[in-house]
């Protein structure tokens, strides 16, 4: 069973989600696997992939791969696949991975097990569990009759295991033709107050209608900062214009699986539960004891968030200072 893993880097740093996919591939194959790493100046990064399970790293290191292009990055993956002839390709389900996987798959006349949360082998066939209807149900899926099996793995779900003392991987440069993409990234715009994105965060603190208005955010923010978390929001407060939609968690926002999710003043509409119900630990603070959020919460406080949350933040800071 031959695996090939697509490795994503941004600004010279390999993404944790890619290391998760790489570790998973090694675990499933029982030995080192092949990886492909496109970008500019990435050859130096290839070595560190050995610890996570790469036996061979195919590197596409070019000036014109400094910024992402679907054509260039899928081209690199496809070129590596031609060399490896893999049975399975794993890609982290990040913004880039979600852009790369479907085009690579269609080019090879196959489909994708998308955004999987569990992956195992039955013989040499991948079998996955993936959330559907935004987590209101889960489907067990496989690649049917496809020869090449492609899966994208949800970030933060699998463990990026590192084995110290693993041998350095073989590094092989890929020869790619001219790229000249028709969809060309001109620049990446990062907001000045760069906030941790909810889709990448280990911990999320979210606010809902219970914060009563945009002037209620500082209370939630205080806890968010104490926990080093990303700030989330319910659809109700996004639609009310209290905060930008990029913070929205739910079926029509981001679907997340953090280690810890703290819901402040969120009742837990089915739409919202769908987006965060797979979080490992959920804390709910809400006045209404009947709020559906308590049905999924691990820990709950039925009370006034304006009283509880500041004390919670204070206790978190104290606990962390110990």
């Amino acid at each position, binding site marked *: 069973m031959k695996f090939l893993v697509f490795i994503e880097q941004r600004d010279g740093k390999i993404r944790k989600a890619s290391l998760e996919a790489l570790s998973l591939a090694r675990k499933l194959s029982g030995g080192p696997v092949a990886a492909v790493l496109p970008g500019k100046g990435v050859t130096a990064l290839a070595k560190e992939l050995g610890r996570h399970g790469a036996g061979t790293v195919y590197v596409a290191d070019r000036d014109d791969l400094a910024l992402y292009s679907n054509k260039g990055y899928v081209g690199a993956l496809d070129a590596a696949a031609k060399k490896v002839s893999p049975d399975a390709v794993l890609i982290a389900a990040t913004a880039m991975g979600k852009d790369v996987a479907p085009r690579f798959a269609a080019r090879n006349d196959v489909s994708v097990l998308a955004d999987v949360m569990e992956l195992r082998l039955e013989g040499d066939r991948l079998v996955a569990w993936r959330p559907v209807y935004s987590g209101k149900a889960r489907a067990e899926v496989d690649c049917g009759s496809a020869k090449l099996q492609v899966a994208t793995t949800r970030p933060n779900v699998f463990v990026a295991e590192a084995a110290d003392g693993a041998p350095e991987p073989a590094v092989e440069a890929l020869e790619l033709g001219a790229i000249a993409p028709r969809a060309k990234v001109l620049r990446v715009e990062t907001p000045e107050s760069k906030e941790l994105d909810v889709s*990448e965060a280990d911990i999320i603190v979210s606010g809902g209608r219970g914060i009563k208005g945009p002037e209620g955010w500082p209370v939630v923010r205080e806890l968010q900062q104490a926990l080093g978390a990303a700030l989330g929001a319910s659809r109700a407060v996004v639609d009310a214009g209290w905060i930008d939609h990029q913070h929205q968690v739910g079926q029509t926002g981001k679907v997340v699986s953090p280690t810890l999710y703290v819901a402040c003043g969120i009742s837990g509409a089915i739409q919202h539960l769908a987006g965060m119900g797979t979080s490992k630990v959920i804390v709910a603070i809400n006045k209404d004891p009947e709020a559906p959020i308590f049905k999924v919460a691990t*820990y709950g406080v039925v009370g006034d968030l304006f*009283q509880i949350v500041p004390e919670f933040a204070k*206790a978190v800071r104290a606990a962390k200072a110990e």
Partner: protein
Amino acid sequence: MNSLVCIAYVPDTETKIKIGADGKSIDESDVKWIVSPYDEYGLEEALKSREAKGAGTVTVVAVGPERAKAGLRECLARGADEAIWVDATGVSHLDALGTARALAAAATGGSYDMFWFGQKGVGYDESLVGPMFAELMGVPHVGSVLKLELGEGKVTAHREIEGAHEVVECTLPAVLTAQKGLNEPRYASLKGIMAAKKKPIAEKKLAELGVAEADPAQAKTRWRKLELPPARQAVKLVPADDPAAAGKELARLLREEAKVI
């Protein structure tokens, strides 16, 4: 500016999902169906582009059983000019590649500058069909578009990535997938609803479009089982009468019991 807007007709986001008798699909009996919310942003942007250029058509297309026509009719009421229904009656589950192939077959012969999809179809939540369609059509794509500027023979799109935007210049024709924040979709007016009744819906049969994946034995991905998510443990409630004590107890539980901070 001619656009083809590809829509999925999906269970309402407020719908409670029940597992069907076959154990691998949903029970459709009490389901209310809606146009997938992200597709609405795509439709709105296509309508706005037609208005901005003062010329062109907006065509909507859906693959599905008879009910998909209701979704198409809704888009016509909002201002689309014409519709194509790919009749997939009797096909229980079409995978993403099969759906992309059916849409590509339906699009062939048309003259389109932009192909719009939602950044994901609410339900299967795969985010696959748009880019796959682009690959099959041999055109570029930009996924998760938050902002679009029209140019001559090209567009500049702001695409959402983790914590940042990629500003992408893309030649037309191209596939664009719409993200929430792109625009505010309009509602259908009464006049629009009346006019929609007279607008044409062309019909194509999936069976006649050469889509191999419509045959379950040829599917490239398939659902083997569908389950409700595993039940979570009952909530452990912390008394709220003393806020300071409640805060401390929460922090203690997270640190000592759950071990997450």
